[in-house]
C-alpha cells in the first residue's frame, strides 16, 4: 500500500478508540444479563433509553459545536457513558430521570469541557451524582431481587412503571425495596449488629442477594478487559485492595460500624466502579503509579462515604473527588525516564 503520511512512522497498529469502547460494552453484557435476571427488564429499558438519549444529545452537541458527526458518534464513548449511568441508577427509575442524567452527563460533563478526551470528571458519575442529590428518594428506591418480590417484574409492568410511574394503580414505591448497602446502613444506625443484619435473607451469601452475582459478573467482564489490554490492572487492583484493607482494619477495631470486608467488595457499585468507572482513562490518572494512587483513593473514599457519609454507596463521589486530584497525582508520579535520575 502506498504511504499516506509525510512523516514517520508510516505504520499504524490496529488499535482504535471505537474498538476499545466496543469491547467495554461487550464486557458489560454478562453483568447486564445478571442484573436483568435479578431486577427485571427495567434494566434493559433503562440502558436502551439512556443510549438513545446519549446519541441524540451527542449529535446535537457536535452540531452546535460544529464538529464532524461521523467520527465522534461512532467512537462509542457516548454509548459507554449512557450504559454505565443506566446500570448505576435503580432499575425502575422514571424515564425523565434517565433523560436528565444522561443529558447532563453528555452536555455539561463532556461537551462543555471540550468533548471526548477533555472532560476532567467522569461523565457518567457526574450524571449519577446530579440525580442522586436532586432526587435522593427516587435514586435510593431500588427493587428487591425477583425471587423475593411478591410478583416478578415483567416487561409490561416495567415499561408502565418507568414511563407512567404506575402499574395496576400502584406506584414505583409499592414495588421497591432497600439495597443491602442501604439496609445495612439504616440498621447499624438502629444499633443492630452487622453480623445479625447479614444473616437476613436480603444479604445473600456475602454481598447481598443478587448483588454478589452481579458484582462477580462485573469483575469477570473487567478481568477480560485487562486480558484484552483495554484497561490496566492498576486501578481495579488498587481500589479493591484499598477497600479490603480499610474495611478489614475497621472491622477489626470495631465490628459494629460496618459490614464485613467481603460484603463491601461484593455489594453496591464496587466492581462496576473498580473495573468500569474508575478505569475511565480520560478523567483518571495516566501514569502507572498514579493509577495505583487513584484507585486506592477511590477505594478508601468509597468506604469512608459508605460508613460515615450520608449516602449508602460512595463510588460515584469517590471517583469524582479523585478526578479532582488527577493533575496533582499525575505530576508527582512521573516515571523515571531512561537514563534519568529518580524523580
Amino acid at each position: 500500500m502506498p504511504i499516506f503520511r509525510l512523516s514517520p512512522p508510516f505504520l499504524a497498529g490496529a488499535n482504535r478508540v471505537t474498538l476499545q469502547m466496543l469491547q467495554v460494552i461487550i464486557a458489560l453484557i454478562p453483568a447486564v444479563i445478571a442484573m436483568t435476571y435479578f431486577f427485571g427488564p427495567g434494566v434493559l429499558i433503562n440502558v436502551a433509553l439512556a443510549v438513545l438519549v446519549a446519541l441524540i444529545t451527542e449529535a446535537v452537541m457536535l452540531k452546535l459545536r460544529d464538529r464532524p458527526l461521523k467520527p465522534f458518534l461512532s467512537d462509542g464513548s457516548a454509548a459507554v457513558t449512557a450504559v454505565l449511568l443506566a446500570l448505576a441508577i435503580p432499575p425502575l427509575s422514571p424515564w425523565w430521570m434517565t433523560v436528565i442524567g444522561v443529558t447532563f452527563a453528555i452536555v455539561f460533563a463532556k461537551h462543555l469541557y471540550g468533548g471526548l478526551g477533555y472532560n476532567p470528571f467522569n461523565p457518567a458519575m457526574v450524571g449519577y451524582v446530579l440525580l442522586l442529590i436532586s432526587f435522593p428518594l427516587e435514586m435510593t428506591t431500588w427493587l428487591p431481587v425477583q425471587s423475593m418480590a411478591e410478583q416478578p417484574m415483567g416487561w409490561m409492568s416495567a415499561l408502565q412503571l418507568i414511563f407512567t410511574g404506575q402499574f395496576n394503580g400502584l406506584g414505583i414505591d409499592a414495588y421497591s425495596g432497600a439495597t443491602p448497602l442501604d439496609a445495612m446502613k439504616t440498621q447499624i444506625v438502629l444499633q443492630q449488629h452487622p453480623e445479625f443484619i447479614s444473616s437476613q435473607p436480603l444479604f445473600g451469601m456475602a454481598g447481598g442477594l443478587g448483588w454478589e452475582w452481579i458484582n462477580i459478573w462485573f469483575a469477570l467482564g473487567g478481568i477480560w478487559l485487562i486480558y484484552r489490554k483495554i484497561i490496566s490492572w492498576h486501578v481495579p487492583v488498587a481500589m479493591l485492595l484499598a477497600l479490603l484493607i480499610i474495611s478489614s482494619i475497621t472491622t477489626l477495631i470495631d465490628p459494629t460500624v460496618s459490614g464485613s470486608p467481603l460484603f463491601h467488595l461484593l455489594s453496591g457499585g464496587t466492581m462496576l466502579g473498580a473495573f468500569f468507572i474508575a478505569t475511565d482513562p480520560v478523567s483518571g490518572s495516566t501514569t502507572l503509579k498514579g493509577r495505583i494512587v487513584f484507585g486506592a483513593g477511590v477505594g478508601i473514599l468509597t468506604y469512608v462515604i459508605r460508613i460515615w457519609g450520608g449516602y449508602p454507596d460512595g463510588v460515584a463521589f469517590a471517583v469524582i473527588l479523585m478526578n479532582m486530584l488527577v493533575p496533582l497525582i499525575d505530576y508527582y508520579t512521573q516515571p523515571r525516564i531512561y537514563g534519568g535520575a529518580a524523580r
Partner: protein
Amino acid sequence: MSAPLSDFPGGLKLPGHKKRSTQGPIRKTPLSKQLVLPLQQHIGAAAVPIVDVGEKVLKGQRIARAEGHVSVCLHAPSSGVITAIGDHAIPHPSGLSAPCITIETDGEDQWVERQQIADFRQHSAHELRQIIRDAGIVGLGGAGFPSFIKLNPGVHHTVETLLINGAECEPYITCDDMLMRERAEGILDGVEIMLFALRAARCILAIEDNKPEAIAAMRFALSARTHLTQTEIVVVPTRYPTGGEKQLIQVVTGKQVPTNKLPIDIGIVCHNPGTAYAVGRAILHGEPLISRVVTVTGTDVTHAGNFETLFGTPIKDLLEFCETRRQPDEPFIQGGPMMGYSLAGDDLPITKTANCILVGVDDVAPPAQPLPCIRCGDCADVCPASLLPQQLYWYSRAKDFDQTRDYNLFDCIECGCCDYVCPSKIPLVSYFRFAKTEIMNQERERHKSDLARERHESRLARLEREQQEKEERQRQRKAALAASKAAKAKEEESTKTSESADSVTEEKA
C-alpha cells in the same frame, strides 16, 4: 560466558516483513551513467571539492577533502569525468537541494592505486583513524556520524565494550542481515581493527533472534578466529526498537546511558556491522567507502532484495532495476517504516546513510483525521524512554514548551512506538518534532537577543564610562586650572607683598 540479558521498558513486537528481501544474495546494482555525490553525506561540516569540472577521476580517487574536525572525505565511486559541481536535489525530507559533485561514468570502472595494509598492528591507532577518516567512513546504520571520532576514546575514557549493533530492528530492512550472512569475515576484520583502535577489552556483536542465518554465519566466522577470545555473539529478542543504541546497550549490558551523556561515558562504543565491514575494507584493502548495501523492498517492489550500490546512483535507476509498481510521483520511504522519511522525487542519489528504499508498506498509517487523546496511556506503556507521550502531546499542542521540557521532551528518540499504538491515531512524533524545533528556535532567538542585550548593555556601560571619564578629565582639568589659578594668584600676591615689602624697606631705607 555471557551475562543474562537485560530488558528495556516499552517497545513493540512488529511484523518484520524481512523475508521479502532476503530471498536472494546481495546483487550489484549496474553502473549508472551519472553519479551525483552530495558533499555532505555525514553529520558535521560538508566536504570541500578538490577537483574541477572536466577533470578525469578514477574509481576510489578522493574528490573532496574533510573540512574541520567533524567531517570526512568523499571519493569517486567509479571512473569518469566530473561534469558539474553545484546544487542538486538530495534525499532529504525537506526536498531541498545541496552542493553535489556529478560524475559522468566512463564504464571502465578503473581503480586508483590502493594502499593495502597487511598488518594493521604495525600502525598506531592514530594512523588507522586517519586512514578511516580519509576513506570517508561514516556510521552506516543511518545517522552518518564520522566513524573515526567514535574510534577515538581520548585520554579521559577507557572503552570496555565495543558493541556491534546487528539488531536491525526496523521492519523490512535487511541490509545488515545480508551483510552478516555473506561477509562475516569482512565484518570481523573490521571488528579487530576497531578493537585495536579503541584499546577495548571486549566486543559484543548483538543480533536479533529473527536472523538465524546471520547468527550462524557470524558464529562460524568467529569460531575460526581463535585469537578473538573476547568477542562474542549475543542473540537478543526481536523487539522494536532494540536496535536503538541506548536500548541495545541496556539489553546487552544492563546499563543505562545517563541523560545528556554518551555511551562512551559508561565505557561503551557502538558501531554498525556495515561500518565495521567498511573499516576492514579501508585498512586491509585500501578501498575507500564508495558503495553500500541497500535494501530495496516494499509491497510495490517486484524483485525485492539487497543491492551493493555505488554512492551517487540515482534512486530512479535502482528502482527500475528492481521493477516497481510505483506510480509516478508516489512518495516512497528512505530508511525504515518507523523512523525513515518520505521522499517524493526519484531523481535523488543513494548516499552513505541510505540503508533502505521502501516502496509501499502493509499496515499503512491511515490518512484519517485523528480523534482527541483519551489519555489511555498505551503510548506510555510502549515508550522505550519511559516518557509520558500523552502529557508531552498535551503540552506540545498547547505550545507550553516549558512543560514539555519538564516532561523530558528531549529524551524522546522518535522511535514512533507511541504513534503506532495510539487508538486515536494522533501523529505524536510529529508533535514532538514540532515542539523540539520550536524550542530550539526559541533558544536560538533567546541566544541572539541575549547577545544583542549584552551588546547594548556593554555599549551603555561604555558610554557611561566614557562620560564619567570625560567628566573626570574635565574635573581634573578644572581642578588643575583652579590650582594653577590659585598658584598664580598666590604668586602674584607674594610678588605684591614682596613688592610692598620692598617699598617698605625702601621707605625704611
